[in-house]
């Protein structure tokens, strides 16, 4: 029997229903604009689907497609307005059975910080079974088992406030597991986590599913979706695609139309076929790698020393001067001169940043990577003058940031967007919020207006449509762009971005990165912290690697990502293309180093298919 069954389920949020009935009766200008939160279509529009016991279903779709609404119907957080949902054979509209259903279908959400009820890990995990009135002896065992399943036993008595995002999210999953549900529903569990945190969640979910748990995973990350047995693509409240990951993801054109991403493995397969390498369409990375290695055996030279890489030119590298001698022709914009920052906490003195020196030149695009707690956020705050170094100096155009006069003029020099900048929006209208900075800078009324308009146009926010709206009625992606417009309206010459794409869907990520690139090309310098090594590899001219408060590498992406082993030891990843190349190389494919992009990797693999040219033979390939 199906564990979950949807029969032509429809659901519209109240504001939508109102908007819809209004739109038929009133002229167009009275209805809210499209694309803002009241969607022009119901959140769920006649969905029918069946999920069997033990399945692992990934639900993907752009923001606002209705995938979260779908998930909330499974455990009766929402009840269908049309049609019927049966969970474990129970009709979810039966109010008597609500708790029964929720005890069988547990759900964890996006933001671990908003889900926990107490400040001790074990107590929080116990919350669900406590509510189910589980007897004490079993309760204790359940908490232990659940913490063991997510590998957090050692943290049972800790305060979640001191854990990393990934650890917190694992606690939240343990809290659901302790209820011993038959179905585990995860609503974007990785959205606020770094790559390492997401990897941990992925591993746990896979193990749980193998042990027989039915898993329903809502996600924006295609690498999470490919590990499912079945992928459902939701678009405007309907199921647009459904099938195995390979079946769904091979419909690349359709995915792009739906504003979704195509997983790297399929993109690589496509690129390879374009280059005449015969490979099949496979969504699971391991299978693709197996196929690529299958017919090659281990014929190749395994010394692994590559003396010459023909692909270096394919990476976006700009000429740079070797450290430490500064470039004479390019004056440095921002210089960190042996900067340390120490603060005291209840655990004693903490060196957040230790003796960091580097210099950023005009027009650089600096990517900063580092594990959680490596000092990234302290470094950014030192960079924009919010913190002053305990020792050492931060120089902006040769002037010390400690100087009061310099600090006063920082407004037009340095702009910084912290993580989730939309959480700082406050004004009654979008235009007012964006004008906050320029007004504080003392610009004239006309100038402010002009700044607002140009910032909005850069951020692809139509002035006529958005200026008078409240920022709080926009979608998450739009709020993010409004917040960034508020920073860019000050026209900083140095723009600092901390995880600018966190939590966005694939289309939102792509769009925002394009905007950032566009602003960067307007003769500005950009510093971006990101967990996405792919984005860093693609955009950055230089990469700064932080580890325990120290700057361990500061070099071109090619040079930095060549140190895969060292980066992995720091719990950092390398670009997807580079990690594919590593694994293929380990399997015997003699690929050169420094393959950071999809195209470079495809080129390199394709070139192996051709007989080696005399020059390559001479170079030991």
């Amino acid at each position: 029997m199906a564990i979950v069954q949807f029969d032509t389920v429809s659901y519209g949020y109240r504001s939508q229903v109102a908007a819809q009935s209004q739109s038929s009766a009133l002229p167009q200008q009275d209805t809210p604009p499209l694309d803002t939160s009241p969607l022009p279509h119901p959140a769920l529009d006649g969905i029918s689907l069946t999920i069997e016991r033990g399945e692992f279903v990934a639900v993907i779709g752009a923001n606002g497609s209705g995938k979260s609404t779908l998930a909330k119907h499974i455990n009766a957080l929402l009840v269908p307005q049309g049609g019927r949902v049966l969970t474990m054979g129970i009709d979810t509209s039966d109010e008597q059975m609500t708790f029964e259903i929720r005890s069988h279908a547990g759900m964890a959400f996006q933001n671990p910080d908003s889900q926990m009820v107490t400040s001790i890990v074990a107590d929080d995990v116990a919350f669900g079974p406590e509510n189910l009135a589980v007897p004490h002896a079993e309760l204790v065992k359940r908490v232990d088992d659940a913490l063991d399943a997510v590998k957090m036993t050692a943290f049972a008595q800790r305060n979640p406030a001191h854990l990393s995002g990934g650890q917190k999210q694992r606690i939240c999953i343990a809290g659901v597991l302790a209820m011993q549900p038959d179905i585990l529903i995860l609503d974007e569990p990785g959205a606020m986590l770094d790559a390492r945190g997401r990897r941990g969640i992925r591993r746990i979910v896979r193990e749980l599913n193998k042990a027989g748990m039915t898993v329903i995973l809502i996600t924006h990350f295609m690498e999470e979706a490919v590990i499912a047995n079945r992928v459902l693509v939701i678009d405007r409240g309907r199921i647009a695609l459904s099938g195995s990951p390979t079946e769904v993801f091979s419909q690349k054109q359709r995915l792009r139309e739906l504003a979704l991403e195509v997983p790297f493995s399929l993109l690589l397969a496509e690129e390879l076929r374009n280059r005449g390498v015969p490979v099949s369409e496979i969504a699971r990375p391991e299978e693709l790698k197996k196929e690529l290695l299958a017919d090659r055996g281990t014929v190749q030279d395994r010394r692994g020393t590559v003396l010459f890489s023909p692909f270096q030119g394919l990476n976006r590298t700009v000429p740079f001067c070797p450290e430490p001698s500064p470039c004479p022709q390019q004056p440095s914009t921002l210089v960190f001169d042996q900067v340390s920052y120490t603060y005291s906490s209840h655990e004693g003195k903490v060196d957040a940043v230790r003796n960091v020196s580097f210099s950023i030149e005009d027009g650089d695009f600096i990517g900063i990577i580092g594990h959680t707690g490596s000092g990234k956020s302290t470094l950014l705050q030192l960079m924009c003058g919010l913190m002053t170094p305990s020792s050492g100096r931060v120089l902006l155009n040769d002037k010390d940031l400690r100087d009061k006069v310099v600090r006063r003029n920082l407004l037009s020099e340095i702009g910084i967007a912290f993580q989730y900048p939309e959480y700082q929006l406050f004004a009654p209208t979008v235009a007012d919020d964006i004008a906050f900075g320029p007004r504080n800078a003392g610009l004239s009324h006309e100038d402010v207006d002009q700044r607002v308009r140009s910032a909005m146009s850069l951020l692809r926010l139509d002035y006529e449509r958005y200026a008078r709206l409240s920022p709080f009625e926009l979608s998450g992606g739009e709020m993010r762009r409004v917040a960034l417009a508020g920073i860019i309206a000050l026209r900083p010459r140095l723009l600092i971005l901390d995880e600018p794409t966190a939590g966005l869907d694939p289309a939102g990520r792509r769009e925002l990165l394009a905007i950032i690139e566009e602003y960067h090309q307007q003769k500005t310098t950009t510093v971006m912290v990101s967990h996405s090594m792919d984005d860093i590899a693609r955009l950055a001219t230089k990469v700064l690697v932080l580890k325990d408060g120290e700057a361990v590498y500061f070099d071109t992406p090619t040079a930095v990502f060549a140190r895969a082993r060292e980066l992995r030891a720091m719990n950092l990843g390398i670009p997807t293309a580079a990690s594919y190349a590593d694994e293929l190389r380990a399997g015997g494919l003699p690929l050169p180093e420094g393959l950071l992009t999809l195209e470079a990797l495809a080129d390199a693999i394709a070139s192996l298919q051709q007989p080696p040219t005399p020059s390559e033979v001479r170079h030991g390939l």
Partner: protein
Amino acid sequence: MAFDITIGQFHNTDSIMHRLDPRTKVTLLFVMIVAVFLTDTFLGLAVIAALLLTALLLSAVPPKTALKALAPLSFFLLFPLFLNLFFVSDGDTLLSWGPILITDVGLYQAGFMTLRLLLLFFTATLLTLCTSPIALCDATAAMLRPFRRLGVPAYEISMMISIALRFIPTLLDDFDHIVKAQKTRGAVFDRGGPIRRVKAIVPCLVPLFAQSFRHAEELAMAMESRCYHGGENRTHYHILRFAPRDGVASALSLAVLIVMLFWL
């Protein structure tokens, strides 16, 4: 991290004082308060002080930590000290210099009052040093339970305290971020008259409210998903159980109280 009230003063180690049932410890606090106010001799205070010092030794809290925890309260000690010292005019004059007049009664009262307050603060500090806020919260709920029949929502109160303890650091963190973000957009908080200063805080308060509503909404959903339905029909992970040591501690404190009442 600077605002970690969930740990507060709690000194996380293992000792007999830590292992005492939190209800016992709360009761001991009240007994000690009553005892401190009942006694009116220095000998009485000395007995209490000796008991507290023993408790401190048993608690494995370094004396330095305990002193540090007391330090912020020193104003409340010094103020009555000076008040008594300078403004009591009964008794024999010990020192008279200009408007300053110190009498023996004043000196005695000042000393006695200050010692009394010091012991009170010390008792409360000792409690928070060896009891986690969560345990205190459990104890509150348990001790309010008998009043449930009178309509006191004992369980809900402890749930509220627990959630508050859990979210205050999160919200303070949020607020810190918002303030920094607005600062980099040119907001100035420390200039101008009072009206301007209040106005300057608006761009920080609005996002903070928005953020707390967001948290509240998500928390409500998560709690519902985990079958929360109020305090009825629910089991507890922490079962507060009295051990023999709780009996010993209670008997001891009762004895002290009786001694105070009749002899000191």
